[in-house]
């Protein structure tokens, strides 16, 4: 029995909790992608770099705040800086829309032209982020590290294995729940949210009933940029900030949006967790868990090397494409 509990604790510590946090971060990113797809009807390749941009502003403000001697008690100072980061990313997103995407909207260009323009935007944001903060890794999590430490847990429970709950993980989950709840309330009950859903369902009908498209598009960018920044800051607090990693997050985020059903906010959340848990469970070495369960595995019992985590998102994506192209929640077919 004790062995079983130990196995469970190891599993929770190395698979379940990290997967939960990563899933919440992916879900927030995928929500932005899916909203942009639903309203503006293109896959935004600049989303990863928008995340990096918002996170960069947050980091800069965090540095400034800590330089001024401001701190947020046991919480990371970055949370205080987050609103300014969101404002920066929103301003950037609206500026980009005004300078780049609006032109193609009035031209009624093909979807692929939007995608290519987003590639150009990706380049520009990429360059700006590297110009300002450089390509290197930045760690900006301060405050308390752990809510529950390995030793504290061991002493409390008397088990051989410890369970650590890191503060960034808890913050990620709490923030994600609040943000998602607020977003769903907004989409479901507010006038603008209803207008957005109507526009996403049927553009012409929405225009006929007097919905202002510019307003819908602007609100979409505001929400997407805010979500991207929150996702980016949470990811950075949990792991670390590196511009290239944020670019690479694009693939799991797209996979999450498509797996859930693109255009479906609920699907984006489900997809985020599906992708995150598949990545973590398939790349974890189960040797210790199995040992507690009474097996004596020879190797590490790792199904795939961690280098292949992108392959997992991709394989899931392909499977969804082949078996159920609309995704879990019956989104659009790209």
């Amino acid at each position, binding site marked *: 029995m004790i062995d079983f509990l130990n196995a469970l604790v190891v599993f929770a510590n190395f698979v379940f909790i990290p997967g939960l946090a990563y899933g919440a971060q992916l879900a927030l990113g995928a929500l932005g992608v899916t909203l942009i797809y639903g309203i503006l009807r293109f896959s935004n390749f600049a989303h990863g770099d928008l995340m990096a941009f918002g996170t960069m502003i947050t980091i800069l403000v965090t540095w400034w705040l800590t330089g001024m001697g401001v701190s947020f008690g046991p919480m990371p100072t970055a949370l205080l800086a987050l609103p300014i980061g969101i404002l920066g990313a929103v301003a950037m997103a609206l500026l980009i829309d005004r300078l780049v995407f609006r032109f193609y909207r009035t031209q009624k260009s093909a979807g692929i032209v939007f995608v290519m*323009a987003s*590639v150009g935007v990706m380049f520009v944001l990429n360059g700006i982020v590297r110009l300002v903060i450089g390509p290197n890794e930045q760690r900006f999590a301060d405050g308390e590290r752990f809510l529950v430490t390995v030793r504290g847990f061991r002493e409390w429970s008397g088990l051989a294995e410890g369970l650590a709950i890191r503060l960034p993980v808890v913050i990620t989950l709490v923030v994600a729940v609040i943000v998602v709840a607020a977003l769903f309330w907004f989409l479901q009950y507010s006038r603008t949210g209803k207008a957005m859903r109507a526009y996403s369902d049927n553009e012409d009908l929405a225009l006929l009933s007097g919905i202002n498209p510019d307003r819908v598009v602007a609100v979409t960018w505001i929400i997407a940029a805010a979500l991207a920044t929150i996702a980016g800051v949470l990811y950075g607090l949990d792991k670390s900030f590196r511009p290239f990693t944020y670019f690479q997050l694009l693939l799991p985020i797209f996979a999450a949006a498509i797996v859930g059903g693109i255009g479906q906010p609920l699907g984006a959340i489900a997809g985020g967790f599906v992708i995150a848990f598949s990545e973590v469970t398939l790349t974890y070495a189960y040797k210790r868990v199995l040992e507690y369960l009474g097996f004596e595995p020879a190797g590490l019992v790792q199904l795939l090397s961690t280098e292949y985590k992108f392959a997992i998102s991709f394989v899931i994506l392909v499977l969804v494409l082949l078996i159920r192209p609309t995704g879990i929640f019956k989104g659009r077919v790209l």
Partner: protein
Amino acid sequence: MSNTQRIISLYGLMAILLIIVGMFQSWTLSLTILNLCLISAIMALGVNIQWGYAGLFNVGIMGFAALGGLAAVLVSMPPVPGAWEAGGIGIGLALLALIGTVGLVMVVRAYTTGWTRKLASLAVAIAGYFVIRAVFDPAVAAIESFDAARSGYLGGLGLPIVFSWLVGGVFAAAAAWLVGKIALGLRSDYLAIATLGISEIVIAVMRNEEWLTRGVKNVSGLPRPVAYEVQLQQAPWFIDLAAQLGMNPAFASAVYVRLSYAILFAIVLIILMWLAERALNSPWGRMMRAIRDNRDAAEAMGKDVTGRHLQIFVLGSAVVGIAGAMLTTLDGQFTPGQYNPLRFTFLIWVMVIVGGSGNNWGAVLGGFLIWFLWVEAEPVGGWLMSVMTSGFAADNPVRQQLVDAAPYMRPLLMGVILLLVMRFAPRGLIPERTAPAMRRK
């Protein structure tokens, strides 16, 4: 200005730019840029075949180029006999097990239906996975531990490296066929995401599978298709030649080597260009453009749209694979860590869009011009930064940050160029010839 005049004047301008670099910086630099321009032009040609002829948006160019690079290693490096003895059989068995698993899944799928079919094929695939791992893992461990410091991989076939250019094309074509089978026929965004994914995976495999590629330990010292500088400097005929031309032998040998590469690459480019132009102006090319411009109409005329898309996706990727093998040949080493999507995928896109999508001459010019700008952006950007910040003291942190960050001007510049061209000259520098212009000719 007619298109022909445009082509002549813009190519002339490009030549002048290279000559200016030769005169003001150095001739070896100019030739180095030229060599990479030629390779970039071939990659841009491959992308243009996919995008310009058929409207397929492939953002996995990096992966196809890396497959070409892998071909260069597998073809040209000498085999490592010890590693083959240690693990060759195991790898062979694993390969057989893989083929067996795939075959078995297909058999199972042919004889069952419904839920049994799904469950049975899943069960066979999982069982197959464990069998493969059981044979594969020890073999890999044996190979990677064999003389790990110098080899630790199986090596290649020891054939002339030029042969690998063809093999690289075949590798890339095979990968493209697989991706295309899955992702073509859906909306174009899917192809973009799928190719982005496959290119990341290809790179992950190359970094990770040390028994095949040495991974991040890199394979260096690939054999060259041209002479080595050191040998030239000792060869009497070359010393005579250098003396007759009045050049320093070291400099002359550097120029000679770069020129030989340039000639080889130019031959490949000319052949591919001739083929691409022939294809574009044939009934097949007209059909491709018809499919691109109005897919539904072409389908109604009885054209097999998905089949043609697959065909052109494979052809374009093969061209990129050839260029990837040539790039690794020029570098003389295979470094999986160097593949970066900005440089190997999105830069090529900028080349095609700026040059003129749908026009091979435009794509090739774009390859030359954008590569030139990419190389020269760093010195020019650094110079601009130091001029802009000259008001600050030399040790001012803002100035130091900006001067250090000058290399990142490159992505910014490329993004701005791409956006500006898409907005204000969406047809590129040398636009596609439209139907009336062709008739007049």
